[in-house]
């Protein structure tokens, strides 16, 4: 059992941050890695991004958006309540060679939706490795944006977009991305984390500019240890298991269309389950 020590609503009712006491995981987890949790006895196993850790206090921070039954259940927990199972760290951390300073180079970090949470953890690691960071984060509207101040603090340049223009630039993250790529010739790497459609569009643009691009994929997972292949993705025309070979891959080699379709697998079941819970 893993106790919740802090709970914070980052966007009213929809994006929640939880600090969970998991001393062993906090000691081990690195940027880019994730955990799988099971809220209670009848719960499913869901992968969640780790946005931050505090090794000294033995705490990890998870940030999630309430999108279905399990995240709704997780939201209902209070400080002092416990999560039945937390397993991690899982996945590969951000490659260490990427974290060495890219001399005279700059990295653009692009985040959308809850992807901003893991983006922040990785951006912090890049900053600690003395890189120049340009940050772009976007959301549907002002209320769904979070970690804005934290990101701003570690970025050398920083842009916010919202689909409806309620905060920052109106439109998608791809607009400022394209602008930066045109203006600056020294961009060494783009890191994009967010909805599949966003990562796909980012990769389409960075391919034109021939800038290497890493993405963090978010397929459906169960065990997270490489034993089932539920999270399989096609990268460079080969089957890869996201939970052990990823979650980060070369964005120019990922089959995003396939991932998008596979992520819709249980849409009807999800509805049935929510109806069952209401009943």
């Amino acid at each position, binding site marked *: 059992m893993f106790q919740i020590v802090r709970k914070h609503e980052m966007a009213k009712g929809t994006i929640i941050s939880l600090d969970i006491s998991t001393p*062993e*995981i906090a000691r*081990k987890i690195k940027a880019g890695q994730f955990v799988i949790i*099971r809220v209670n006895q*009848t*719960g*499913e*196993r869901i992968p969640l991004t780790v946005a931050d850790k505090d090794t000294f206090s033995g705490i990890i921070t998870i940030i999630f958006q309430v999108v279905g*039954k*399990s995240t709704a259940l997780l939201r209902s927990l209070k400080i002092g309540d416990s999560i*039945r*199972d*937390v*397993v*991690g*760290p*899982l996945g590969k951390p951000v490659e260490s060679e990427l974290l060495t300073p890219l001399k005279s180079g700059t990295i653009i970090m692009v985040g959308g939706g809850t992807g901003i949470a893991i983006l922040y953890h990785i951006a912090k690691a890049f900053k600690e490795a003395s890189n120049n960071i340009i940050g772009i984060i976007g959301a549907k509207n002002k209320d769904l944006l979070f970690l804005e101040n934290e990101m701003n603090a570690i970025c050398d340049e920083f842009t916010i977009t919202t689909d409806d223009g309620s905060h920052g630039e109106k439109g998608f993250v791809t607009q400022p991305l394209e602008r930066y790529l045109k203006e600056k010739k020294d961009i060494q790497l783009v890191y994009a984390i967010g909805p599949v459609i966003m990562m796909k569009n980012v990769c389409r643009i960075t391919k034109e500019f021939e800038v290497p691009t890493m993405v963090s994929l978010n397929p459906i997972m*169960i*065990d997270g*240890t*490489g*034993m*089932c*292949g*539920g999270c*399989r993705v*096609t990268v460079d025309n080969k*089957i890869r298991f996201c939970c*052990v070979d990823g979650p980060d891959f070369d964005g120019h080699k990922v089959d995003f269309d*396939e991932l998008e*379709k*596979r992520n*819709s*697998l*249980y849409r009807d*079941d*999800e509805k*049935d*389950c929510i109806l*069952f*819970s209401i009943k």
Partner: protein
Amino acid sequence: MAKSSPKKTPMREQPPKERIKNYNEVPFGYSPEEAVIEAERCIKCKKPSCIEGCPVEIDIQGFIALIAEKKFKEGISLLKKKNILPALSGRVCPQETQCEQKCVLGVKNEPVAIGRLERFLADWEREKGEIEVPPIPEWTGKKVAVVGSGPSGITVAADLAQTGHKVDLFEALHQPGGVLTYGIPEFRLPKAIVLKEIDSLKKMGVNIYLNSVIGQIKSLNELLKEYDAVFLGTGAGLPWFLEVPGENLNGIYSSNEYLTRSNLMKAYLFPKYKTPVIKGKRVATVGGGNVAMDCARTALRLGAEKSIIIYRRSRTEMPARSEEVHHAEEEGVIFQFLSNPCAFIGDKNNWVREVECVRMKLGDPDASGRRKPVPIPDANFRMPIDLAIIAIGNSPNPLIPSTTPELQLNKNTSVVINPANGRTSIKGVFAGGDIVRGGATVILAMGDGRIASKGINEYLQTGIW
């Protein structure tokens, strides 16, 4: 005494039409009267050959004689001297190729039903509610880490706890048991029984750490700093795919994923349990082993109208236990032999709709002695399906080897050991079960565990590697 029957005493079972509507165990097990009748069939050979067929060398004749005398308590004690998990092995061992194959009665008639009698004793003890745990000697001062709580890990943990070592057992999933928990379905091996057997380990002082992925939360080298020896029993959890076009369509599972969802996560109780599983009407399972039978039979219980096994060889070459094939047939599973999928065809929403197969004929025997399937040109055919399960085998899980480069592997990515004592290429590290063999059987994994625990004891006593 009446002349004993040439056939095994039958075991009562749920009728096929009824059982495909539930997840309850198919065979009911022997009553004490039936067990005694069956035990009396044993002719007490001077040199019992049945014991040679048992990988953990149970005193089969001994425990059967005790059943015949109605001394069940003594019988289970004798059985447990060699096998701490009889309720499991009595159910899932392929006895027809092990102990029962060697039974002298089997030459002319049916062999003694050794597996059923083993199961009877274990169930008898559990139903009485007093599971006997062997006495634990004083602590030797040595600590051993066991990685993986499947059949081999459980055996090692039990053996070493009985020797007096302190044992910590690490499991990646949220429940112990390995394949016994996530793989073998409830109707073949009730999970309550698995958990009960594993409970005996806790009573013997074994600490079980769940949610602990070794290789991530702790490396093998970190374990070696804390423990005097380590046993790796992490199994063969890396599923193979066919690598044919369309295999990533929606509605195509690995057997591991399908069974994990339905068994470990109890998706058959959805939506009470929150993990969903796709319920196909026309389900194709590819493969001919026990896992394929488990998947095809699970599909029926999840409401499939047609559950088809696609196997590239013929019935004779199928590696599944004959009892499992028989059960599958009774339940209405359809067998499509000498066929191999070459593509899956989907609809515009990316859902699988058809499987295209190549027809095969049997050629000359291959290295394994089985006749090799050879494709027949221009004889492809298609079948409509809405769910496919790939059950063609597994490789050892690469998580520990990939984080421990000094661990020697063979070309099949299996961990290399000395078969006499289970030693790997790293001092203090032992291995056994499917991480060494690839996908094999529960009892072979238990046998490996037995060898490794002897090897570990020897190493801990002498300190010599």
